[in-house]
């Protein structure tokens, strides 16, 4: 299918390159500017229904049981010419034993004024395997209020990995909430990597509910807060099933002044064989890390940059 090379798509691709992703326009399966669908490519093994609404789109995607897609599906949900109130609702249903890797890009162009809500629900069948990369690029001239909600329901033996990344330019007023419900022997890892700069207000909330025996959850967040940023992390783990495990690991690193950080772990065990742990840190970059690099001739600023880039990778 020939791709309509609308200027917005080219700009979107340029943003992807800026965040280090070398996709071309031809690699994209779907591109929408708020509720204006610029193109859509059918993907074998995937049934997808998309309905544009007044404020965004509604999307329902079904991957049949046993279908294994061995290349990444990429979808852009952008704001280039259309901002304002914006609501995306997406549901992804992944059949038993199906496997898929999906990239969703939230690309926000210059001077957009935005109040956006993305509500995503993923249902994984038995032994299904899903990797979901949610990569953002927010132009620094945009004014952004963004709420991103992700709900994942994992059936027995399912595996779900999610990465949320906003590490370029700015986050804006950004709140994300993950809710995961893990069935027996399900494994779920969610990672958030954010760089908050001047004026940004970031809230990351991860809730893991371990309802099946032997379920395993990991929530890992890395938030770098620069001058004048605010960031908050809330991690909650509920160990309801026997032998369930969950680890919450959040490091918030400060670089600069006038920074407000909060880090709130909540562990609730309802089964004596559940094991819930957390690691929370707030503060400057570890002195020992800086020194180890500075002993190789890097200045403190250079060493800081190396450590920060590594954490946000």
């Amino acid at each position, binding site marked *: 299918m020939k791709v309509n090379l609308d200027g917005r798509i080219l700009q979107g691709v340029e943003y992807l390159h800026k965040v280090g992703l070398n996709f071309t326009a031809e690699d994209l399966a779907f591109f929408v500017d708020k509720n204006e669908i610029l193109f859509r490519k059918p993907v074998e093994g995937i049934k997808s229904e998309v309905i544009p609404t007044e404020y965004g789109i509604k999307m329902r995607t079904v991957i049949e049981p046993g279908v294994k897609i061995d290349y990444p599906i990429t979808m852009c949900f952008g704001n280039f010419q259309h901002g304002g109130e914006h609501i995306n609702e997406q549901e992804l249903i992944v059949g038993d034993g199906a496997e898929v890797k999906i990239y969703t890009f939230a690309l926000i162009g210059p001077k957009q004024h935005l109040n956006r809500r993305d509500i995503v629900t993923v249902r994984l069948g038995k032994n299904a395997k899903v990797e979901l990369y949610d990569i953002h690029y927010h132009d620094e001239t945009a004014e952004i209020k963004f709420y991103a909600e992700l709900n994942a329901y994992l059936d027995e033996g399912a595996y779900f990995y999610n990465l949320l990344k906003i590490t370029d330019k700015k986050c804006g007023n950004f709140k994300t909430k993950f809710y995961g419900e893990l069935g027996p022997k399900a494994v779920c890892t969610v990672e958030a990597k954010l760089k908050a700069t001047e004026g940004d207000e970031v809230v990351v909330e991860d809730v893991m509910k371990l309802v099946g025996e032997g379920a395993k959850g990991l929530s890992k967040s890395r938030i770098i807060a620069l001058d004048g940023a605010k960031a908050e992390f809330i991690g909650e783990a509920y160990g309801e099933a026997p032998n369930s495990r969950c680890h919450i690991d959040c490091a918030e690193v400060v670089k600069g002044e006038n920074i407000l950080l909060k880090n709130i772990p909540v562990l609730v065990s309802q089964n004596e064989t559940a094991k819930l742990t957390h690691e929370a840190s707030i503060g400057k970059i*570890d*002195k*020992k890390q800086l*020194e180890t690099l500075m002993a190789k*001739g890097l200045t*403190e600023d250079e060493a800081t940059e*190396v450590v920060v880039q590594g954490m946000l990778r």
Partner: protein
Amino acid sequence: MGTLLEVKNLKFVTEDGIEILKGVNLDVKKGEIHVLLGPNGAGKSTLANVVAGASGYENPTEGEVVFDGIVLNGKPIYERARLGLTIAFQEPARFEGITVEEYLKLSARNNPDADIEACLKKVGLEPCDYLHRFVDDSLSGGERKRVELASIMCMKPKLAVLDEIDSGIDFVSIDEIGNLFKTMRDEGTTLLVITHRENIAKIADRASLICDGKIVETGDPSKIIEKFEKECLTCTVQNPELLKELKFNK
């Protein structure tokens, strides 16, 4: 052989007023392997930190650190590194998201001739298995130390202070690490090696014994080892763990 590092009457008192170094005098000659022996708590790491200019150690309470004719007092660690003096810390840090390859490249950035893969091989790590590993908690203690040693080789400084780089490394034969030190020396890196292993001390050109914040004696390694065993081991009767370690490491 000229002197590369000269430590003169060095005193180091902590902010809490604890005197750790009590007047250290030490000279390390250009092109030698100089081993520093001493019991736990003698002040070896503190001396290493003051020499390298680790943060909080740049300004000794008294005395001087002179390197290649330049007084280092007050100079931050990276400036000393740029002058050709580096340190492998007793506990090198770990880094999320930085690969062994990137770490070694950072170390080699002022040494265009560095052969990263060859350095890794020399410390017993297969490049194809390790170049893309992260220098994070997933490396074992021994692997981390090997990477650190490789990074020093990549950097090829004039002087490297190695603070127990051999601890946790089970080289197939101790000769292996000894030979590595000799190669580094022959290729132009003078070494100040802190170790608890007698077999490594043996390969030194000279050795010094530090005790309670002072250098007690400098000279031929065999003599220093003997003195260490005779005097420090009896002295460390209060420290049976060390005694065990020393016997074990032989």
